[in-house]
């Protein structure tokens, strides 16, 4: 049956979701650090069918000059979807959705960056969604955290993100695109484990107070799992490989 003809009830059959996951399962995640040559830091992340490339430049001279801040670095963030990343071609110019997401991702990463170490400079984060399948802002944040670390930018913590939603009346972790479209709610959460703090929180749809409380807990628990994967990805690049990777970020 084509995806477009599914009904919300089809999304959850005998506790199984369309892609075979249980309600509390993440999609498979693959993370790779230091994938681009020119950028100061970079990461590639696959999260289910999401394929996202992140590059970080900086700290570097702020352009235009008037955006420079006297007491800290200016953080710039661009979340952008490739025209071929979705079913129907997306015009390349940034949409209102992309502009809003760029802002909330910047505000999700900014609390983690020790921007006061680099006054008058700018740190630029570029997130390119090459293929999108629901939850791309969270996957983008996970990749951006890695790219910032890869650029050697001092951080308070890594930021890990995932979403919790509701399908056919039940909480479900990490909604895919069809699940988001047919589901009743979606709540992306970005989290810094060291501070037990949220750096991004959005929600749309309908949650009772209890569903929200349970959903937030589920999101936090899985942000912690993603956090471990991020540390693992950094270790792979910088500790185990040794040699080339270990010097690239210095």
């Amino acid at each position, binding site marked *: 049956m084509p995806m477009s003809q599914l009904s919300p009830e089809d999304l959850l059959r005998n506790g199984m979701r369309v892609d075979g996951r249980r309600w509390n399962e993440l999609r498979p995640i693959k993370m790779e650090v230091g994938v681009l040559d020119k950028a100061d830091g970079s990461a590639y992340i696959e999260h289910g069918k999401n394929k996202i490339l992140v590059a970080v430049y900086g700290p570097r001279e702020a352009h235009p000059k008037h955006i420079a801040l006297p007491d800290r670095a200016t953080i710039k963030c661009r979340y952008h979807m490739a025209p071929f990343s979705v079913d129907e071609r997306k015009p390349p110019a940034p949409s*209102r*959705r992309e*502009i*809003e997401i*760029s*802002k*909330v991702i910047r*505000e999700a990463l*900014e*609390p983690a960056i020790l921007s006061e170490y680099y006054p008058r400079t700018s740190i630029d984060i570029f997130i390119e969604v090459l293929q999108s399948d629901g939850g791309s802002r969270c996957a983008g944040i996970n990749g951006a955290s890695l790219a910032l670390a890869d650029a050697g930018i001092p951080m308070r913590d890594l930021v890990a993100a995932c979403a919790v939603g509701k399908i056919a009346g039940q909480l479900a972790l990490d909604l895919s695109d069809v699940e988001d479209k047919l589901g009743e709610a979606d*709540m992306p959460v970005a989290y*810094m484990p060291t*501070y*037990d*703090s*949220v*750096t*991004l*929180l*959005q*929600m*749309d*749809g*309908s*949650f*009772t*107070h209890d569903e*929200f*409380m349970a959903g*937030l807990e589920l999101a*936090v628990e899985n942000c912690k799992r993603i956090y471990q994967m991020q540390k693992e990805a950094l270790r792979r690049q910088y500790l185990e490989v040794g040699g080339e990777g270990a010097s690239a970020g210095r």
Partner: protein
Amino acid sequence: MASGKRLDGRGLLDHRGFDIRARIIEKANGSAHVSLGKTKVMVGVKVEVGKPFPDVPDQGVLTVNAELVPMAYPLFEPGPPDENSIELARVVDRGIRESKMVDLKKLCIIPNEKAFVVFVDIYVLDHDGNLIDASAAAAAAALLSTMINKFEARDGEVSLLPETIPLPISNIPVTMTFAKIGGQIVLDPSLEEEQVMSSRLTVTVDKDGRLCALQKGGMGHMTIRDVRECVKLAIERAPQLRKSLLEAIGYGKD
């Protein structure tokens, strides 16, 4: 603020209170002016006949736009909407859309062909903080005051009749924004407070006490405990705020 008092004399969780006037622009289908302290926001609603979106062919269309008018604040500049005005419009949009405030199914005239398009235009006239709550209240009041023409559809042609009916409404969301300043949470931040806050959380609650939209903003982070507290407070306070909003515009009386 450590003593529990704010610069303007309010307690930490005191709201400045909305002053609302509805139906102030005769040429609009619906309109409202909201003062929240010294913040002033006007919303005009225009309803036109257009085409439904192909992915929801049996529904009317809702679009929300926000203008940060240059007269409102020294740093607002003319030009295409920036990220702040886009975020403002999209947060207000989510509150209206996700609560199903406007019954869009009733705004379809001919499936796939003709539907009412509801334009909600937010006009920020004076910025003294908490534009989101002021805009959401003004948008809600304007939609509640909106009248649309009765219509006749014949052979794919739509003719509007002179008689008007209220826009079909099926929920009334209320939006509350909390700011984290130092170690404290305050409701309804003023501009001065927004300038020193580390983060904010906007919570939209529908008539049944369900959450329909959330948005964290600002450069800082917010502990899980604070998030839970804000959501709890918002759900507790929503009925009272909704009541005062409806009383202010005399909704349900006529």
